[in-house]
């Protein structure tokens, strides 16, 4: 088999745009994931049992169903069920974000359990209101302690974005499919796509390590 990377590279513009799209969708979904995960963490520690129960059910449901099915449900079932008509872009980001949120919540729960009790006590003794205790004292430390895990979760998000090709989003995987249908060069195109995925995920990991190094002086 003769590989013709040199022929493909000049035509790989769509891959570049696809990669950008993947990164863009991944970033927003990750933001949604962190937002949802933080919300779930706060709900898990709420004094209302209904919220605490909800978090448990949410988590088991998300982890117990395939991400692809969740995406399809968001895309096909949400509009008829609720009357809210969201496009594939919003549906996809929501689905991936809400999926990731369940995992982020677990990561944060682990981080929270490592915060010494004295931190709560010192904050309470100063008379800080609950909200301030969470957002100024506890959450910053929780996030700091789980940076490597969160970065890893971000790469997981990037790696489930190809599922969004099933709901018509032209992200990197869909873009490469379109390109090899056109050029009949699946091996070259997909190798390139894999390389791009690798570069994205590797850069994210490196960025995570940089973040952690930078904030090492906070550590007790």
């Amino acid at each position, binding site marked *: 088999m003769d590989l013709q990377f040199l022929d493909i590279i000049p035509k790989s513009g769509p891959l570049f745009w696809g990669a950008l799209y993947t990164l863009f969708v991944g970033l927003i979904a990750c933001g949604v994931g962190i937002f949802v995960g933080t919300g779930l963490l706060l709900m898990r520690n709420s004094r209302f049992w209904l919220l605490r129960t909800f978090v448990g059910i949410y988590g088991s449901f998300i982890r117990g169903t395939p991400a692809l099915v969740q995406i399809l449900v968001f895309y096909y079932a949400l509009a008829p069920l609720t009357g809210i008509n969201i496009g594939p872009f919003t549906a996809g980001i929501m689905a991936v974000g809400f999926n990731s949120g369940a995992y982020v919540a677990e990561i944060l729960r682990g981080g929270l359990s490592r915060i*010494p009790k*004295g*931190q709560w*006590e*010192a*904050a*309470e*003794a*100063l*008379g*800080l*209101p609950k909200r*301030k205790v969470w957002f*100024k*004292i506890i959450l*910053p*430390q929780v996030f*700091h302690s789980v940076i490597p895990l969160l970065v890893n979760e971000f790469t997981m998000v990037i790696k489930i974005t190809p599922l969004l090709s099933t709901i018509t989003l032209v992200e990197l995987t869909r873009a490469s499919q379109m390109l090899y249908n056109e050029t009949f060069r699946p091996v070259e195109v997909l190798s390139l796509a894999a390389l791009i995925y690798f570069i994205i995920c590797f850069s994210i990991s490196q960025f995570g390590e940089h973040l952690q190094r930078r904030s090492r*002086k*906070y*550590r*007790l």
Partner: protein
Amino acid sequence: METVHPPALNPTSDAPKVMVDIRHMNKFYGDFQVLTDINLTVHARERIVICGPSGSGKSTLIRCINRLEEHQDGDIVVDGIPLTEDVKNIDQIRSEVGMCFQQFNLFPHLTVMENCLLAPMSVRNMSRSAAEALARRYLEKVKIPDQAEKYPSQLSGGQQQRVAIARALCMQPRIMLFDEPTSALDPEMINEVLETMEELAREGMTMICVTHEMGFARKVADRVVFMDQGQIVESAAPKTFFGNPKNERTQKFLQQVLQH
């Protein structure tokens, strides 16, 4: 709404104000009674040292005063405010009562300055500049003015504890609680913290200290309270307490502590 202050417990007007009044207080962990019929009255400017063997309930007692621990029955009144389930009262009491812990409990992700700014700005609604001026004043008082931009982990244990004292003082509390402030420190750092506490005492701060530093108790305390098995066994001025302890358990404890 205005807080309703109960009538003063001491009717003579020139007598010092009652800052902490604990009456018939009991505390349980499940079925286990950790504090039994605690009665303790602390007046303004008074310095109380609480000592006793480990597990005697000393820390639990002072942690009840700012509601880090809940008491089951009896009354606690702090600076005229009854300590109840009422969150408003609890918040109010906490803003009047400063506390230092054995493990310092500084916030490791914030600089020394930020540690000191947080509560005055978010509880007292002070402006940043006013809070900073206040923090600088107290950091100077505890003799670490030039470490304000460092993180707690960059300081020694003694320095961290002094920052913790400054952080509590920035709320301008009327009462300070110390929960074994020197127990986690290396011996050569104990004195710097004790000196800071002595200075605070000289300035007339109302203080309740749980400590094993008998030298500090002798020098600074107006009253030494001895606890054993969740009860206040003896309470006396240091001279009487160390020179002529009445209770057998106190005698035994002092023998062990003062032997060397």
